[in-house]
């Protein structure tokens, strides 16, 4: 296959693939799956934080949170648009989500149980997402790379806001400090799981790296996240719930313990604390909106017909 060889040469030469370029079927499918999963994560990710909008403890925090959740909807829109450049159908991807055929980031299957979780999600979850996503700004597929540049910029902003909320709470009352620590205790391990299983157990990594879709292994990114986060935790004054966490001067990295991978596989398999709730929520919104979308389509069709006649 000349085309295939040409493609391989282009991507290994760091050239961008654009929608009209030829690409192998596997590349296209892998990308659609990965970008859709990312889009779904943004959409499902609206729920755990959205859960606190109505109860935000100050109007300023309410505005910040509402804007952030709105950004997530926006990210979902860019990413679905990127899949459409690959020939995917947004309606079909949504069906895949609400029917559980496609996944989203496992982190959103954990509940948000206090307002500190809003800060922790910003700090740890968005922080981990950024570690995952910064390399994707140089991913081989052009539209995806450009969407990621925009998204990463907004995510960094969200991460700073999350950290700032936690900082404010840590300098508040004892109750607020306890709330932050309790939240970090719950989210630390799930955050480490966001990088996926250890490289030894990761099925898709090798081909994706070759295609320049992925650029780092799960374990590399996880290490980078830990190295970045530990000093931030110290500055914040919270304890990360890992007794094995320790600076290793020889490696020049922090050593850390392993998350409970059984829990990870259970959550990925659909049985986390909130999987059923998240998908049911999305499905309900989708089904409740069916008549609205049908009406908009009917109106648009009638309007188009009338213009055609005129």
């Amino acid at each position, binding site marked *: 296959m000349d085309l295939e060889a040409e493609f391989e040469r282009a991507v290994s030469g760091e050239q961008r693939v654009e929608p009209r370029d030829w690409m192998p079927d596997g590349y296209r499918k892998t990308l659609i799956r990965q970008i859709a999963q990312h889009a779904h994560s943004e*959409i499902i990710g*609206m*729920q755990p934080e*959205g859960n606190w*909008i*109505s*109860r*935000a*403890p*100050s*109007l*300023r*925090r*309410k*505005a910040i949170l*509402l*804007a952030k*959740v*709105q950004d997530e*909807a*926006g990210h*979902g*829109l860019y990413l*679905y648009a990127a899949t459409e450049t690959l020939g995917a159908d947004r309606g079909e991807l949504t069906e895949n989500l609400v029917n559980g055929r496609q996944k989203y980031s496992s982190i959103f299957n954990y509940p948000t149980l206090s*307002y500190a979780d809003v800060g922790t999600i910003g700090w740890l979850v968005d922080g981990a997402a950024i570690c995952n996503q910064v390399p994707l700004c140089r991913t081989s597929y052009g539209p995806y790379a450009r969407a990621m540049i925009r998204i990463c910029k907004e995510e960094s902003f969200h991460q700073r806001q999350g950290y700032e*909320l936690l900082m*404010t*709470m840590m*300098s*508040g*009352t004892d*109750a*607020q400090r306890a709330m932050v620590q309790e939240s970090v205790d719950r989210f630390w391990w799930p955050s480490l799981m966001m990088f996926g299983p250890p490289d030894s157990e990761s099925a898709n990594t090798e081909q994706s790296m070759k295609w320049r879709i992925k650029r780092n292994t799960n374990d590399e990114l996880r290490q980078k996240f830990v190295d970045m986060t530990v000093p931030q935790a110290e500055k914040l004054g919270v304890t990360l719930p890992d007794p094995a966490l320790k600076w290793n001067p020889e490696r020049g990295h922090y050593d850390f313990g392993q998350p409970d991978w059984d829990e990870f596989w259970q959550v990925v398999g659909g049985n986390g604390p909130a999987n059923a709730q998240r998908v049911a*929520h*999305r499905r*309900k*919104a989708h089904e*409740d*909106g*069916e*008549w*609205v*979308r*049908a*009406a*908009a389509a*009917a*109106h*648009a069709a*009638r309007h188009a017909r009338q213009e055609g006649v005129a």
Partner: protein
Amino acid sequence: RADLFAYCLMLGDDALVLSQRLAEWCSRAPELEEDVALANIALDLLGQARLLLTRAGEVEGLGRDEDALAYLRDERDFRNVHLAEIECGPFAGGDFATTMARLLVFSTWKIAQYSALLGFADPVVAAVAAKGLKELAYHRDHAAQWVVRLGDGTDESHRRMQAGLERVWPFVEELFAAHPVEQRLGLDPAAYRAEFDSVIDTVLAAAGLKRPTSVPAARVNGRAGRDGVHTEAMGYLLAEMQHLHRSLPGATW
């Protein structure tokens, strides 16, 4: 001064309470674009509310800031109109059509109200009105487009849109009843009723919908939202909104 304080609360509470209601759609809208749009509108209104409540606190002069006024006032002291607080979806009591009916009515009325405030004696209120007008023009446009789309969509959407209008229409009369505070400030909402009617009629005509026939909601002892007498929905809204803030007295956020 007491009148200006009360009037700032009226305007601020209208915006705050409707913002709270609209934000309930977040992650529940019929399409993703609408999640973005409704959050945007809720944010605009929240922004207006913050400026107005802050101004109310300054005018009062007792050191209450926007949060003290939003979170530590009791229901009886909220002065928003009933239209802002009633349930119009996504939960019980409404649907997307009802939400759009309320938004159309609310923003059409607010535009007229803010327009009348452009030369208002208090410069902060006048400035909020000026800035708010641009935002509200977008809100009204957005609502009007949906009312037309749904009115002229399918049989089901037409039926729901008409029902949504009937549901919110009883709360229109309150919007144009001059409160003593307004009277003393030289403001007369009745003056822009005709303008309101004409905008609504235009939208309804484009949508193929009928002017609603539901009669105005009765007052309790002659009093309504502007007097702090609300509907039963208001208590639940405030319980949810205020609980966390009240649970951690002395906390800063």
